[in-house]
């Protein structure tokens, strides 16, 4: 009797120890990686709830059109040619301002990041401009440039210039001191240093700024197309507001979202090509 009971106790103890060794693996404190596509679950649920609410009559078309209605309206507008015209007008504005702003931002960042005179002349001015919201300049710029295209492109240009300048300039100033010392001991000229060390070193910072700039140029456009225009996605949405066409407003919102996503994807693609050395280890 006693023998049996002791052996059970021993056995139990062994199992308990085995349990304990299983449990020795430390607790997982961070969530596991999300499988591909699962990120879409949240948006899909909202979309389905929205559609259901519209169909059940909870959501009146006067408040918000159903997603399916908006998609149908969008397709109709593409087919009758009205949407491509407005889209082209918006894109022309956004990308002219973007191009000019990125160009000027990079030139100013180079002058300010690589020369002392440049930094003394430029940096303070840009930092002050940074503190002023672009949209606060609208009244003044309308007086200067009128209410036409020049005003809209100019305002996008100034909005884009700031983040491009700030990030590129910071990247140039934050250059690895070890690389500077190396360049000096290798006897590089100033031009060689800029070309081989300073510019490639600042490229990641420039791409960060480019992604901000691309998002910003479309954001600025929404507001600017409220002012005196007969073309553009912003104009389309405002006219739809006057006529209570919520489906067209939703189409506009979807287009802005798509433009933002596509532009960002394009910049990221260029970035991954330009900075391919970073992926060398498959990280």
């Amino acid at each position: 009797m006693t023998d049996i009971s002791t052996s059970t106790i021993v056995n139990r103890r062994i199992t308990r120890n085995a349990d304990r060794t299983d449990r020795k693996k430390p607790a997982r404190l961070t969530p596991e990686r999300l499988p591909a596509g699962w990120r879409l679950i949240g948006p899909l649920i909202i979309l389905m709830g929205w559609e259901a609410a519209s169909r059940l009559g909870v959501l009146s078309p006067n408040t918000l059109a159903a997603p399916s209605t908006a998609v149908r309206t969008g397709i109709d507008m593409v087919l009758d040619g009205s949407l491509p015209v407005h889209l082209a007008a918006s894109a022309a504005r956004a990308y002219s301002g973007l191009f000019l702003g990125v160009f000027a931002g990079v030139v100013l960042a180079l002058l300010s990041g690589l020369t002392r005179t440049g930094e003394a002349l430029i940096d303070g001015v840009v930092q002050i401009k940074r503190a002023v919201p672009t949209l606060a300049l609208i009244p003044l710029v309308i007086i200067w440039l009128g209410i036409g295209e020049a005003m809209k492109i100019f305002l996008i240009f100034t909005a884009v210039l700031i983040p491009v300048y700030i990030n590129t300039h910071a990247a140039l100033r934050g250059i690895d001191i070890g690389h500077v010392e190396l360049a000096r001991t290798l006897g590089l000229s100033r031009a060689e240093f800029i070309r081989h060390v300073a510019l490639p070193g600042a490229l990641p910072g420039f791409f960060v700024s480019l992604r901000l700039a691309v998002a910003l140029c479309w954001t600025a456009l929404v507001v600017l197309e409220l002012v005196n225009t007969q073309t553009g996605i912003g104009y389309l949405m405002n006219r739809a507001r006057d006529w209570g066409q919520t489906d067209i407003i939703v189409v506009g919102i979807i287009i802005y979202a798509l433009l933002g996503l596509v532009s960002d994807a394009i910049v990221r693609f260029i970035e991954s090509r330009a900075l391919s050395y970073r992926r060398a280890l498959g990280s």
Partner: protein
Amino acid sequence: MNAHLTHAVVIRDLSRSFKGKTVLDHISLDIPAGQFVALLGESGSGKTTLLRALAGLDDDAESKGHYSRPDNVSVLFQDSRLLPWKTVIDNVKLGLRRPDARAAAEAMLADVGLGDKATAWPSTLSGGQKQRASLARSLLRAPALLLADEPFGALDALTRLRMQALLMRLVEHQRPTIILVTHDVDEALLLADRILVLKDGHIAEDHAVSLAHPRHQHQTELSLLRARLLASLGVEAGNL
């Protein structure tokens, strides 16, 4: 002065201080052309400061005294300082203005055992391979003076031994004057013709090591010198 003709490096009364704190204190030193000098010393003894002074990388120091050294100097850093956005071969020939730079760089890479890594990105190399590339970059310039700041300090023991052998093989033909800053007493004993111990910014000891290469750690002459060097660095050999 006659000394300037036979000596590659002549240092006279060299002092360096940073924000009032003296790091080098009136150092005078002559190094004959082709001599391999190892610079030992505890942290803060001024050995890296001396090396950086000779490399011309101490703009922020208050300087006194003067030195002369060859114009053609290469610096070998502890971190290999390869530019991550340039392939290995472009790193090695960076700043080289010879028309045959690429071919010379390829030959030098083959010499350090990286012949198949010429077009690889530095981030794909191991620590030892990076330091080989860095060594190739330094020696491709055929320097008259090689300044090495603990170049093997961050490598594992086996890789370090291989790199030491590689360095000795490569400089056998070029015969540059070498100043090697190191924490490693055995490294100094195995490689150098002369070992200096720096203490509080001045040269406390100056030993010639005339033993032929290759050397082995257990040679009697080296063992005696090792005990002395360790003692002067504050480590009692008996405790090891």
